[in-house]
């Protein structure tokens, strides 16, 4: 876009747009959209593209002693892939991905599963009290993750937990929510709690968009509610499912606030519990910005690759189902 002459390109494409060809409209149309886009492009460049470029640049830099002996100076120089090698061979960073995977394998399927289940139930014609349930399940979306963590944290903490209160009342011990291995489902529960409502609304809205007569004819053909849900509803709303899956995946990879907030209550959460926490520690506690940048690039790149793979797989499947 920057290398092309906008006026010439506009002139070339004129035959395709007979309606905008007006004596005064021609020039205007070639400038106006850029003016509308200018603030967005400016912000996109400054806060997205430049930071990406800067992170990539930094990730190839490193502080090294240049020169020999007592006269050596620490200088920022190009170090090639050293930071990337350091990142992927750092056992803490690798382990944080392992913990993230365990967390994600609990959080994502349960969030989407419950969201889909609740949406299908809301859409079920004979369900009662849908307005109340829908609103109640949506409420956690309005609760910041940090606040949700704080609330659940106290509900996990043996001294304030209502659940442990019950188990103790029945003669048992407190439930070890914040100890391994229960820590993983406990942290995942916080994001499931916060995420189900929003995803449910997206899926439910998609379900409402399906014309009801499709169900009626299936029912006349003797299809049960289960068959209608599995064979008709779910394939028809697959775009919404892909979208919620994509958001859940991206959200999982960048989980940070929940474990960080829970850490003061749960000693089992280390400073490097998930990748973003490791990156934060490298950047601000250890002052190793190049290493943190390399790790950020790995995480961001991994997110993009995982998203594209998800889109590719699901598109193929959705396509296959519709046949």
């Amino acid at each position, binding site marked *: 876009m920057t290398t092309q002459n906008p006026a010439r390109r506009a002139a070339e494409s004129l035959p395709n747009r007979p309606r905008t060809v007006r004596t005064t409209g021609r020039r205007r149309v070639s400038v106006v959209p850029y003016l509308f886009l200018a603030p967005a492009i400016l912000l996109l460049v400054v806060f997205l593209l430049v930071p990406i470029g800067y992170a990539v640049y930094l990730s190839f830099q490193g502080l090294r002693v240049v020169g020999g002996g007592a006269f050596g100076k620490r200088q920022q120089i190009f170090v090639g892939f050293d930071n990337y090698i350091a990142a992927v061979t750092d056992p803490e960073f690798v382990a944080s991905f392992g913990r993230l995977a365990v967390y994600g394998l609990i959080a994502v399927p349960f969030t989407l599963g419950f969201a889909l289940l609740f949406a299908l139930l809301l859409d079920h014609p*004979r369900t009662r009290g849908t307005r109340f349930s829908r609103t109640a399940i949506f409420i956690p979306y309005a609760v910041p993750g940090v606040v949700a963590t704080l609330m659940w944290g106290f509900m996990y903490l043996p001294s304030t937990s209502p659940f442990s209160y019950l188990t103790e009342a029945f003669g048992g011990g407190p439930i070890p929510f914040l100890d391994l291995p229960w820590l993983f489902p406990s942290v995942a529960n916080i994001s499931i709690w916060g995420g189900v409502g929003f995803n449910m609304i997206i899926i439910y809205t998609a379900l409402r968009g399906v014309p009801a007569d499709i169900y009626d004819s299936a029912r006349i053909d003797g299809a049960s509610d289960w068959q209608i849900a599995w064979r008709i509803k779910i394939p028809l709303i697959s775009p919404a499912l892909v979208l919620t899956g994509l958001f859940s995946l991206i959200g999982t990879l960048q989980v940070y606030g929940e474990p960080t907030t829970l850490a003061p209550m749960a000693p089992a959460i280390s400073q490097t519990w998930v990748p973003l926490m490791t990156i934060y520690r490298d950047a601000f506690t250890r002052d190793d910005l190049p290493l943190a940048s390399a790790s950020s690039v790995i995480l961001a790149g991994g997110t993009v690759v995982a998203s594209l793979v998800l889109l590719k797989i699901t598109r193929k499947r959705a396509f296959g189902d519709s046949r």
Partner: protein
Amino acid sequence: MSIAAPALDRTVGTRKDRGGRLLPTIVLLVGALYCLVAVAWVLVASTKSPGELFSTFTFAPGTGLLENLGNLFAYGGGQFGKWALNSLLYAGVGAVASTVVSAMAGFALAKYDFPGRNLIFYTILGGVLIPGITLAIPQYLLLSNLGLAGSYWSVLLPSIISPFGIYLSRVYAAAAVPAETIEAARIDGATEARIFTRVAVPMMIPGMVTVFMLQFVGIWNNFLLPYIMLSDQNRYPLTVGLYTLLAKGSGEASLYSLAITGAMLSIIPLVALMLFLQRFWKLDLISGGLKG
């Protein structure tokens, strides 16, 4: 749904009716209970004095609500009030600016044909996939080079750009603003700016409310960006402020009570706003947008 209903249904209803009515209702109510239990807990716990917090049954109301509120607003010379105002500032101003920027960009992408349109659009789509939060560190470095780190701007400006907001606005502008209407306004001699503000914006209002709400909640709930950018406690939003309370409070019951009361107060306005704006939401945009 009363407790007597199951027995009645079981005898009268057919097998299909029984499974069809009761089970979905009960499962949904269990889901609703799950979502409300944490909110109910924090409401009850905020009424407990620090002494009662660890000694009485967790769902038994206490007597310390006023004391907790007094302590909370007195903490650190009224810091809680500042955090709440800061959150309102970041989320309110950020979301309005973000909605305007997104609507303009979405309108241009949907309704004009111009060189570079696809390049810009796909760059924005790519931005949806980049986890914004991994950019927080390079953003911090850039802003500190500009001398802006630690200022209100350092949290506001990065919050304004929302690739997803632009994407939604484009989908909505394409669907809601007919080309004929724009053309008619053009024939009447309206300038492009006037067409946007007088013709397109009124038609795009439901979509813009959705973008505003998504951005407001997103910024209000954001933790890592302000956590990285800010060092002055008086500029913290609620999320970071409450986190520092909690981090300091390990073992100190009085600070725990403050954190719980603060959590209770911080969710009430947002839940109220959400319930009020729920009817204006156009979330079919989100689900309908990803076709093809």
